[in-house]
């Protein structure tokens, strides 16, 4: 084993835990420094999900992706800050304080994988892994000006990812350029019997910048109300750049878009209300010897251990699943989810790739989003890909007011390669 020292100047609070002396082996990523989001289990290294309720929790096993990274020789140098349990779009909802955007410390880095994106953007690591339930990789990639991929559902094992909303989330790579992202992704994808939704589709791809004849759909619904016009303009210019490289772009429409955000939040909070039931302070987390009854003891532990946004989402999920409301919320959300899938199936008969802004706006100021619903609305352009299980990527495509804008590319299931090539072609041209 080889060793490296890791003592980053973490002025943006990207890390919750750093590992000063890291061992690594030989392999395709030998010595490449990788930061891992703190909701991905690392054997022997504290894993908190940025929550007080998991303070001191040391996983006795590695997540499958962590095993793969180590086998490939990667140096895992630390665990990154995030919105608690992945619940947020700004990395402000952390028990360890907010992460700052490396490009402007008064702004958020996006979230929930904000620490991973900020560590990469600040040059503290070569690359990072995050997780994406409704945009949590693409949002911070967009706000920090780096590349981030939410893989096709099932392509990367979720074994060891501390679950927020299983049916929506994927683990994925973040990097400063497409070729590093592609290198990292090549060791992450593949079958794992310990994840019941795992699919045997490894990623072994040689980048190609040839996109001649690529058919791009540009859905009007992704450029409408709530999208900063300068952001929309920047993204439309990026699509013109792709056209200049031989792609053909056409307007199209995803009518189910108006249900997507609600559906994604109803489904994710419902799944969360079930997943987070395990955090009761008994098997992990702070337990206290108490003469109180089960219910009182749990309520007390969970009030002390969970932040407000986590409790709000558990609340919303429990409500959506409650007798009398289930039919109006959870069931209808499943119907909307099917509509989104059907819309994408229809669009992908005519187009190879869908292009849009990743986020409706540039990174907002820390503390600016006070109302929870307002924060949820910022995910409106990223959630459709999670509902449909299709791959989606964000690549930097310009600046507005000095802050990065992300171009989102969405593809057919298992065509992550095509998105990566399209982003690569764009990056070659734009650099």
């Amino acid at each position, binding site marked *: 084993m080889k060793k490296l020292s890791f003592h980053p100047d973490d002025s943006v609070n990207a890390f919750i835990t750093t590992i000063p002396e890291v061992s690594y082996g030989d392999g395709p990523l030998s010595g490449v420094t990788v930061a891992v989001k703190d909701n991905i289990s690392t054997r022997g290294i504290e894993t908190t999900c940025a929550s007080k309720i998991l303070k*001191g929790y*040391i996983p*006795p096993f590695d997540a499958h992706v962590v095993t793969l990274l180590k086998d490939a020789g990667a140096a895992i140098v630390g665990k990154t800050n995030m919105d608690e349990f992945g619940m947020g779009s700004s990395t402000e909802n952390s028990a360890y304080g907010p992460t700052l955007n490396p490009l402007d410390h008064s702004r958020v880095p996006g979230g929930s994988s904000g620490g991973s994106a900020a560590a990469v953007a600040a040059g503290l690591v070569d690359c990072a892994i995050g997780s994406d339930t409704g945009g949590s990789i693409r949002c911070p990639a967009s706000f920090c000006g780096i590349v981030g991929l939410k893989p096709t559902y099932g392509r990367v094992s979720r074994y060891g990812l501390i679950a927020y909303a299983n049916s929506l989330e994927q683990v994925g790579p973040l990097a400063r350029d497409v070729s590093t992202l592609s290198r990292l992704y090549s060791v992450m994808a593949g079958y794992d*019997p310990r994840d*019941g*939704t795992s699919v045997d589709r490894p990623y072994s791809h040689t980048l190609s910048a040839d996109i001649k004849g690529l058919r791009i759909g540009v859905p009007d619904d992704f450029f409408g109300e709530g999208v900063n016009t300068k952001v929309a303009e920047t993204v439309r210019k990026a699509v013109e750049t792709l056209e200049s490289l031989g792609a053909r772009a056409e307007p199209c429409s995803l009518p189910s878009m*108006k*249900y997507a955000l*609600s*559906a994604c*939040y*109803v489904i994710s909070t419902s799944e969360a*209300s079930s997943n987070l039931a395990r955090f*009761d*302070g*008994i*098997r*992990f*987390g*702070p*337990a*206290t*010897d108490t*003469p*109180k*009854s*089960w*219910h*009182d*003891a*749990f*309520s007390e532990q*969970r*009030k*002390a251990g*969970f932040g*407000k946004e986590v*409790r*709000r989402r*558990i*609340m*919303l999920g*429990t*409500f*959506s699943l*409650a007798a009398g409301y289930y039919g*109006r*919320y959870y*069931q*209808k*959300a*499943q*119907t*909307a989810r*099917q509509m989104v*899938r059907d819309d994408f199936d229809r669009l992908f008969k005519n187009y190879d790739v869908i292009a849009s802004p990743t986020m409706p706006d540039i990174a907002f100021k820390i503390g600016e989003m006070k*109302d*929870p*619903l307002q924060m*949820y609305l910022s995910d409106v352009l990223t959630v459709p890909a999670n509902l449909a299980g299709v791959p989606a990527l964000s690549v930097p495509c310009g600046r507005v007011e000095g802050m990065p804008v992300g171009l989102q590319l969405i593809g057919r299931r298992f065509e992550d390669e095509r998105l990566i090539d399209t982003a690569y072609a764009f990056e070659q041209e734009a650099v």
Partner: protein
Amino acid sequence: MVTTDDVRKIANLADIGLDDEEISEFAKQCSGILEYFAVLDTLDQDKPLVHERYNILREDEVLPSLSQEESLQNAGLKEKGYFKAPRVM
């Protein structure tokens, strides 16, 4: 419209322990959020759903798993090799 009574009931079901101030705050915020989600209720329920999930089964063989010691290593309270939980009654 979510009332403070609804919030109290749900918080109790989910064991999330809210104080009085949070109960009124959550009632107001959840009302706004659920009002936004109400767009879902305009959809017809008759659309067929395509489920691509299926059961994954394997032979019932013993595979490597955590030892009792490893399973207990993160527990704050344990007794005689077991997790110690609050009383049920």
